[in-house]
């Protein structure tokens, strides 16, 4: 009996280590192969660096978009499937304002409102870019943040608050409903076609010695992401509100008993998450240069993957998870055809979760 238990325990321990060992060996083989390809010129250094750069940009896009989701998940304890459409909503609100500011006088107001979906006001002719129309871009970003905050609060008051005490499944399905309503309201006004937002992302900067080009809009995205993360980090770690939020994330009932005004914390959470999400939507539009009614929905699966990979509820986890997903799905091109790279990114997510079931940032509940 004892021996059997011991044996079983030993086998389990060996089993779990065996899996980690396998992952390690697999990684070593891939790394070795990568070096071999670089040395034998089967892979150009330029290509590898370009893959990494593209991966970082995509990773920041996903990670930035994931901050809001991680925040609301940790405080409200349900996965908000409407998150992707909050992103789209913010992007549309911000870009309409940017177009109106950039093109007022030269174009019909109605065409500008439709941001190039119909009419004459296409991205190239309106000429929107950080360098050419900085005022329009900054105002658009601020409007995107403000509008998304207001809209998320409104949706929370009308829909989520009355069912705050319902189960996760009820809230989840409701959020899917909210997602559909938002998405098709946008499609009703702007149609289902993809529109071009920016004229170009020049000037481009060439990294010395490497040859990889970095555009102004990519640099803008990186800078804004860093500022946002720093701001949210300070708020959560240093302010009284942040302490209350962390308390609620750990144990909502205990937080309520301790006298924390939970509804006000929820409100604050939606404000921060909504602002971050609106900014993400606007900046995703700026970096990719295109927008459609389903842009956010398309990103949502990757965002969920990043948030889960990083450890659900952690904003650093969301950023880090985004970077892992982004880099893996681009660098995987070295070995596999491009239609399978997203699958590769999800495979990495599953492997990570098998080794660390709570995600990479397990236990570090930051929000």
């Amino acid at each position: 009996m004892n021996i059997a238990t011991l044996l079983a325990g030993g086998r389990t321990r060996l089993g779990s280590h065996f899996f980690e060992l396998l992952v390690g060996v697999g990684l070593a083989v891939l790394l070795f192969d990568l070096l071999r390809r670089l040395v034998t010129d089967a892979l150009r250094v330029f290509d590898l660096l370009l893959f990494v750069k593209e991966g970082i940009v995509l990773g920041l896009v996903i990670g930035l978009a994931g901050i809001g989701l991680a925040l609301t998940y940790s405080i409200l304890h349900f996965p908000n499937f409407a998150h992707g459409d909050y992103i789209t909503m913010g992007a549309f609100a911000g870009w309409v304002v940017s177009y109106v500011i950039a093109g007022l006088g030269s174009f019909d107001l109605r065409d500008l409102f439709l941001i190039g979906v119909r009419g004459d006001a296409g991205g190239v002719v309106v000429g929107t870019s950080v360098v050419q129309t900085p005022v329009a871009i900054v105002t658009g970003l601020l409007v995107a943040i403000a509008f998304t905050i207001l809209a998320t609060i409104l949706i929370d008051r009308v829909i989520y608050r009355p069912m705050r005490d319902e189960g996760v499944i009820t809230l989840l399905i409701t959020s899917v409903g909210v997602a559909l309503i938002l998405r098709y309201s946008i499609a009703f006004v702007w149609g289902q076609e993809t529109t071009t937002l920016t004229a170009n992302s020049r000037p481009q900067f060439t990294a010395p010695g490497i040859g990889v080009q970095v555009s102004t809009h990519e640099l803008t995205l990186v800078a804004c992401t860093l500022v946002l993360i720093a701001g949210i980090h300070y708020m959560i770690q240093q302010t009284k509100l942040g302490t209350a939020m962390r308390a609620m994330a750990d144990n909502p009932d205990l937080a309520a008993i301790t006298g924390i005004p939970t509804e006000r914390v929820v409100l604050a959470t939606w404000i921060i998450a909504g602002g971050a999400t609106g900014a993400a939507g606007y900046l995703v539009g700026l970096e990719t240069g295109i927008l459609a009614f389903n842009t956010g929905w398309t990103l949502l699966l990757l965002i969920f993957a990043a948030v889960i990979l990083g450890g659900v509820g952690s904003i650093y986890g969301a950023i880090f998870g985004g970077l892992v997903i982004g880099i893996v799905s681009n660098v995987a091109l070295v070995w596999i055809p491009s239609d399978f790279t997203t699958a590769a990114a999800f495979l990495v997510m599953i492997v990570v979760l098998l080794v660390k079931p709570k995600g990479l940032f397990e236990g570090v509940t930051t929000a």
Partner: protein
Amino acid sequence: MAQQVYRRHFISAIGAGGAVGLAGCLGDDNDGNGDENGTETGNGDENLDRTLRVGVVQPQTGALGAVGQPVTDAATLPVKQIEQADTSLSVDLQTEDTQTEPQAAISAAQGLVDAGYPAISGPLSTATTLQIVENVTVPNEVVQCTLGTAPVISAVEDNDFLFRTSTSDEFMSRAIAQVATEKAQAETVSTLSINDAYGQSLAEAFAEAFEGEVLDQVAFDPEETSYTSQLSEALSDDPDALYVVAFTENGIQILRDFYADFDGETQILGSAGLRNPELGDNVDADLTNITGVDAIGAGPSVDYFTDLYEDEYDRETTQFTWQAYDATAVLLLANAAAGENDGASVRDQMREVASPNGESVGAENLVAGLEMAASGTEITYRGVATDVVFDENGDIESGSYVTYSYDESGALQLGERIDIGE
């Protein structure tokens, strides 16, 4: 199996009942007599006083919704011509939406077959066509005339019930290969194509047709936020030209990434999706290195069709409208010649109404042509898209294409016409 047989009995019962109800005096047609050539077409008056039944399945929503709506309009135009003309022939038309989804396409086509339609015109995409052929039209012995362009459609086991009035991508690839060699003067080409049946079959057919060397063949997922990595992979062996097979929206993004992250010196060969007058408004670059090929309507009666379509719907003809008109027109002519709303009889007349030695029929005299076919006169349908001559696979034997390019200001320019035959 048992269910299949049951369904067929059920349908033939419905079909017979319907025919009796409609015509009243159809008389002595006994089901399944082995008369292969449809020689019962001779007796005039009875055949001139019939209702021709045809179903149209096209995507009106979903991914191809925007392309599908004008195509549906074109596919129903022959019916409008008959309704507006002074003739004793009448038409019973029903239109169904495939939603660009194989499953929805099957139920759309099944609905038409259950209602007793002997012939189906459409749909647009290869994927939905293949599902309808396998599950609906061939098992129920209903003729189908599709617009799908993938070469795989030629090889389908269809018991000769499947035809198409669009030309196979093999022809398109030969046209683009010709442009690659002659206009772009490329000796090496890489391909970057959308990862569905359309993109993959076009890229493969191009690799077959191109005389030079094909270096890399990269497929892309249409939902990426950036295509820089895919472009870098496709350009890694430094080809003279890159063949981009994409729909307009992915195409715009691919071109934006191409001009932003690479030197822009590689020639771009474009599929139909890169032909768009608004491309210059969406891509801020010198687009003069793009050359492409798109299918056009160039059949004998294309001018008449163009006027008719623009008068009726108040918009210009777009891609696949020509082929859609041909599909419905040829199905109706074969039906008139067959003299009965029966799939196998209509099938047997499909090649007959397009055989070369008859009275010439086109969009301008379609109704007269239907009457001639019904009274047993030998006719030759001369199409809107191209000359409709079906080969043994039910494919069209020739295709007409036009080259396009962009000038310094980003405006779309159409170039010379390219005709590709067997």
